[in-house]
């Protein structure tokens, strides 16, 4: 199972990298979103998969699945959501002011 998931993570990371290297802002934002999916899976996989029950003390018996990666991912999901929202609005504002969503056209003047 772990090997399978890690392969999937590899595909996700490669796709995300390719998207991030684009010129279009939306593609880049999508790239970061895919990237965070990959990272979440990676963190979870590092804590071993399917090695225990749901980490709810009253509901299930030991052994429990590793709760620490889960807590980390929970934080990461929220943060990546905040970042995605922020750059989306940034892209929107940039387009409003500058009139393009192409990064090569957004490139600053040389003397700046």
């Amino acid at each position, binding site marked *: 199972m772990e090997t399978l998931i890690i392969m999937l993570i590899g595909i996700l990371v490669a796709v995300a990298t390719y998207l991030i290297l684009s010129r279009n802002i939306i593609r880049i934002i999508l790239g970061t979103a895919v990237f965070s*999916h990959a990272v979440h899976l990676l963190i979870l996989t590092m804590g071993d998969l399917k090695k225990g029950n749901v980490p709810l003390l009253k509901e299930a018996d030991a052994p429990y699945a590793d709760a620490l990666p889960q807590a980390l991912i929970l934080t990461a999901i929220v943060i990546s959501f905040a970042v995605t929202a922020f750059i989306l609005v940034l892209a929107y504002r940039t387009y409003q002011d500058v009139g393009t969503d192409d990064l090569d056209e957004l490139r600053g003047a040389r003397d700046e």
Partner: protein
Amino acid sequence: MFSINLVILIPFIVAALIPFSYRRFKKVHLGWIVLIVPVVLFVLLARLIPSLASGKTYVHTYEWIPSLDFNFTTYLDGLSMIFALLITGVGSLVILYSIFYLSSKESLQHFYCYLLLFMGAMLGVVFSDNLMVLYVFWELTSVSSFLLIAFWNHRKASRQGAQKAMLITVSGGIAMLVGFIMLHTMTGSFSIREIIASVSEFSDHDLFIPAMILILLGAFTKSAQFPFHIWLPDAMEAPTPVSAYLHSATMVKAGIYLVARFTPVFGADEVWFWVVSMVGMITLFWGSFNAVKQTDLKALLAFSTISQLGLIMSLLGLGSIALQFGYSADSVLYTQATFAALFHLINHSTFKGALFMVVGILDHELGTRDVRRLGGLMTLMPFTFTIALIGSLSMAGLPPFNGFLSKEMFFAATVHIMEVDIFSLPSLGLIFPVVAWIASIFTFVYCMIIIFKAFLGKPQQEKLDKPIHEAPIGMLISPMILVALVVGIFFFPNLLGQYILQPAMSSIYPTFGDAADLTPKISAWHGIKPELLMTIAVIIVGAILFKFLKLWKPIYGLFSSRFTFNVLYFNFLASSVSKSNLVTNRYMNGLLRHYLLYIFIFFIVTVGGYLLYFKAFSFDISTNASFRVYEVCLVAIMAVAALSMLFAKSRITATLLNGVLGYSIAIFFVIFRAPDLALTQLVVESVTTVLFLLAFSHLPDWKKEKLSKGTKLINGIISVAVGLVVVIVGLSVVDFNLYDPISSYFEDAYELAGGANIVNAILGDFRGFDTMLEVVVLFIAGLGVYSMIKLRVKKEDENIEDQ
């Protein structure tokens, strides 16, 4: 008993207090308050003179980073005492003088803050026993010097002078730091005293000579030795009290201090002897030779300072030869050069300080320091003239002033060195008296320029903006005290010799037994000896040269102005700026894709390269959990969805595919026993998708990207490589079980935190602080989103108003 560490800290503390309290002293000139600091420190230190004279030393240690051998250890001995007295004594006089020199309209709080900063740093340099601490203080003096030179920072020349001084002294300082580290590598200690005690075992070490040269570089740049002297004339852009204090009496002597301090370490080496004495001799000659052609009195004094520093430096070099012979009646003769160096160090501070203050008076009262516009000031400024006369004659080496005594000792030392029969001195030794004598002639000439051109002759009122008048008494007090010392030292030199110089001699020659033997009796008259004849010849030839100055001055025109060290410095500076621009512009080209490529390539090379190099890749399928068919289906769906994103024709498709990924991960979270994650992921993914769709209504349609095949290929290769590296790292790490997982600790969540849901307990309790910061991040992002939308509205309003 007060601690010496405190002496260093007091100026810093007061400097730190000034910005908060200077507003309270609106009615009083801030200088009066600041003056208390050096006066108190001077008195405190002066009280220790008798016990130092009896051979006592004081060591205080405050442990700073003992694990790295960095300790704030102060060491008060004869050598540091001389410098400390100069720093606090001249410091007091300079601050007193500055009260009348700087009007209350200047930003005095900055000036005195920097000055105290310097004072503390300089005391730190001379008192520190630990080399690393010494280095920190050393650089602090460079920084405070930079701030003081650029005090009038609206002037371009001030800023340039400050930059030049900073660049040269700091690069020397870094060389010195490397030298210190080499010393530590050799001896295993950062303490100067320990290094002196053990260094004889290391004189054959490979690093011995490099360490010596690097440390000398630090000393030479700081003490404005040839060819690093070019910063000192430009540093004269500083207010005159600063020039008198930092750039003649104290900071530029830090290099002298360093050389004197390290004489017991390196002095017994031939390289040390030749480098120190020859650099000093060249500087002595070059400084005095160039001083003659200056028309700005302050520039003249700057070159004169360079020359005098060279004199002291060469004397220290000559004195180091005594270490060759060990302690005997003969070698004591050679230590007199070092004695003369220390003696001249004090004398120079007295007469040069007074002269700088005189030039400051002229500048302040008459509005110029140009010798061509001055003249005939003798009768109109009698006090100033007297001070200038005494200072100049002492500098020229005439009796009855202290400069005569040390100059004679200098000549005597150069004559003695010819008698030494090692280091091929019998053939080369003649250089020393000859160069010393020629340089002294030029010294005599420029001293006469100060007296005759500025003060004698006809007054040239028409060339001055202000009427000629005597300076206020406040500005005269400090230089008067200094010239009183000039005369006083001439008549009672042995008092100084016994109480101040003798303990310093035993710090420079710790192996030489009784310091009293190293202290010659200074006398003005010691029969007709070569040194006296040399002085007389200097006066005669100097007078003739001064008389016919106009005839031979054109020789300065022979030196091309295109090949000076200044031009070299400026070219180096300009080309390093343009070259760095060229390099930076090449890779910082404003294209985000390139920057990201750097990051990805770096990741591939370092992480992938590391795994490859150390063969760290491990892969073991046996520990894997089992999988079912539907799980494989899910993985396949995600892989297909991800890959299809690359080829999505519309942005809506791409976003929905991203949604597929998100929801599939939520299902995986369920499979992997993480219900909280699954819930959160579902909510967040829905909101994100909505957010994307919302943004699309304001963004242009997805244009087909026009990328060249090459670009696409590079992007593809990089992406696949990044993915591969992540897979390899993931496979290697997943079986890494060297340490027990810490998760079992959290399984006591119910006992420890009262929560049955472990994940929630971690977030809300064990790592509650992290969660709070996470909320802060969310809050800031929300603020950013809100303000970005809000700002636009305002701007549009303005535009409407403009129309």
